């Protein structure tokens, strides 16, 4: 751990990814989302919570070239489960898959959530479909004997995700919605602020602004936090350099780090949320871009 940081960078996953053509064995609309189940044994066997898969989209005649990254929700019995929100053309195509269809998928990708400090009570915070990415983690933590509190938040009730799964696994689950249509009205931080003091680690997945709020709250209380970020990705495997954001490394220096291979899980106190999408002079190599100390 670098001086002043509560987290160490997440280590790489145990197994390298594979690329497979797999069958969709389940497709179920869940409120605003579609839950897809894939018969992808090799991916299921390798996956660790926090990792994601990347789908080729649009079929054989597709004009969409880039893969779509989707967090792994759970794995079991050779089946990988993901929850997809129809955002643009690629994710919409994914939500239209039906059992029997085949998809080309690469995974598991990215670095998993690091293990919690021994005996720590863990707080899991999911925003929108981000909650799906925490279900596998909740199960793993419970199995390892950790107490687990979970918060799921969303703009409205239909955009909540995986609440039932989390309820089955976690010791306590709090729900918030911006419009009050389910659970408490307000942002997840409402519940996070209450639960945080009793927790020894925080894991979060969801929109950037939520991640920032949760990470800041945790850091302020001296609690290590790990966030799974979502940056626009072209390849998902670390070769294109499109998915970068400023992250402080173990040497204390900030680099534009690839969220696909150096993330998506980063120490919450290491992501420079305010500087995402900009280039500040203290980023390694910014001087060569003409951005120098003012």
């Amino acid at each position: 751990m670098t001086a002043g940081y509560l987290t160490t960078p997440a280590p790489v996953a145990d197994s390298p990814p594979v690329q497979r053509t797999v069958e969709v064995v389940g497709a179920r609309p869940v409120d605003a989302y579609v839950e897809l189940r894939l018969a992808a044994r090799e991916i299921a066997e390798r996956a660790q919570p926090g990792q994601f898969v990347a789908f080729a989209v649009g079929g054989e005649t597709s004009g969409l070239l880039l893969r779509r990254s989707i967090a792994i929700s759970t794995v079991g019995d050779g089946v990988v489960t993901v929850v997809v929100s129809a955002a643009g053309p690629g994710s919409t195509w994914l939500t239209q898959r039906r059992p029997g269809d085949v998809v080309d998928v690469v995974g598991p990708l990215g670095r998993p959530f690091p293990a919690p400090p021994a005996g720590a009570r863990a707080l899991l915070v999911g925003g929108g479909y981000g909650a799906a990415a925490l279900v596998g983690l909740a199960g793993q933590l419970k199995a390892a004997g950790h107490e687990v509190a979970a918060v799921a938040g969303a703009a409205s009730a239909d955009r909540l995700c995986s609440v039932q799964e989390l309820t089955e696994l976690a010791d306590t689950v709090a729900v918030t919605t911006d419009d009050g249509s389910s659970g408490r009205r307000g942002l997840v931080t409402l519940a996070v602020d209450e639960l945080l003091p009793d927790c020894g680690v925080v894991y979060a997945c969801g929109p950037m602004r939520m991640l920032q709020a949760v990470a800041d709250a945790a850091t302020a209380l001296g609690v290590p936090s790990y966030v799974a970020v979502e940056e626009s990705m072209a390849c998902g495997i670390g070769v294109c350099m499109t998915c970068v954001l400023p992250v402080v490394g173990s040497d204390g220096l900030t680099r534009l780090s690839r969220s696909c291979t150096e993330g998506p899980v980063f120490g919450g106190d290491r992501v420079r949320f305010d500087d995402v999408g900009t280039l500040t002079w203290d980023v390694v190599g910014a001087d060569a871009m003409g951005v120098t100390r003012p």
Partner: protein
Amino acid sequence: MTLVETAVDMSTALGSVPVPSPVLTASGCSAFGRELEPFTDLAAIGAVVTKSVQLRPRSGRPTPRMAETPSGMLNSIGLQGPGIDGLLDGELPWLAERGARAFVSIAGVRVEDFAELAARLRGVPGVAGLEVNISCPNVESRGEVFACDPVAASDVVAAVRAAADPAQPIYAKLSPDVTDIVSVARAVVDAGADGLSMINTLLGLVIDPDTMKPMLGGITGGLSGPAIRPVALRCVWQVHQALPHVPILGMGGIRTGLDALQFVLAGASAVSVGTAVFNDPSALGRIHAELAAALETRGFASLREAVGYAHR
């Protein structure tokens, strides 16, 4: 990647350096090869063409750095990379250990940058040759891109050829954004280029309909992918027609063995696969196998026989 054995001799050469496969990565589309290891046998492909390296480490541009476009994408990475020291210390030894050939892409903003990089790479184990990425703004000419001016382009190539290891072939990488690509090709060959890589991306722009501003931080970006394949093939065709004895590393939208075949028939003796890797990380091995099968079906005993065949 498992190379299916076909009767076709797939060996080719980059300048004077023999390679076992005509299929290479494209600069900037496979980083330094490492991340492809789970999907591709790096020693079996022609070479890993590395992300263009400059003298100093570079952060690259702020995000957003890409926009998907119909059958393609726009990128504006800004040559993020570790600089030549990082490359020499970390990436090149890693590739050499695995028996993978590196074709090192170098970039700079003045002629001397290129020459210094070439000098630093002399005799480095595993470096099969250099690709000179002249699609960079020339700071000494109001930021005009070297590749858009035959004189500036040949200045770079001449300086690199003079500074580089004589055993390392140098390929000049041409931009399609010119009125007359043949004249640029001729100029850099006259200046000492052993081969030509073509094409680099086309300059493009996408506007975000929500923000109503250009999507990319860098405003314009480079268009790549199958969308540009006909333009790339036209460039290869024209240059091979004019300079039939100059080796060409063809690229631009190659996604299948039949796409690669088109480049070979048009005059390329090797091909780079760029954006397609984002779609299919196993693309290189697959394309090698598909190309071998396609050549066999068409009665070619070797890749070399097919090079430029469409002109005959």
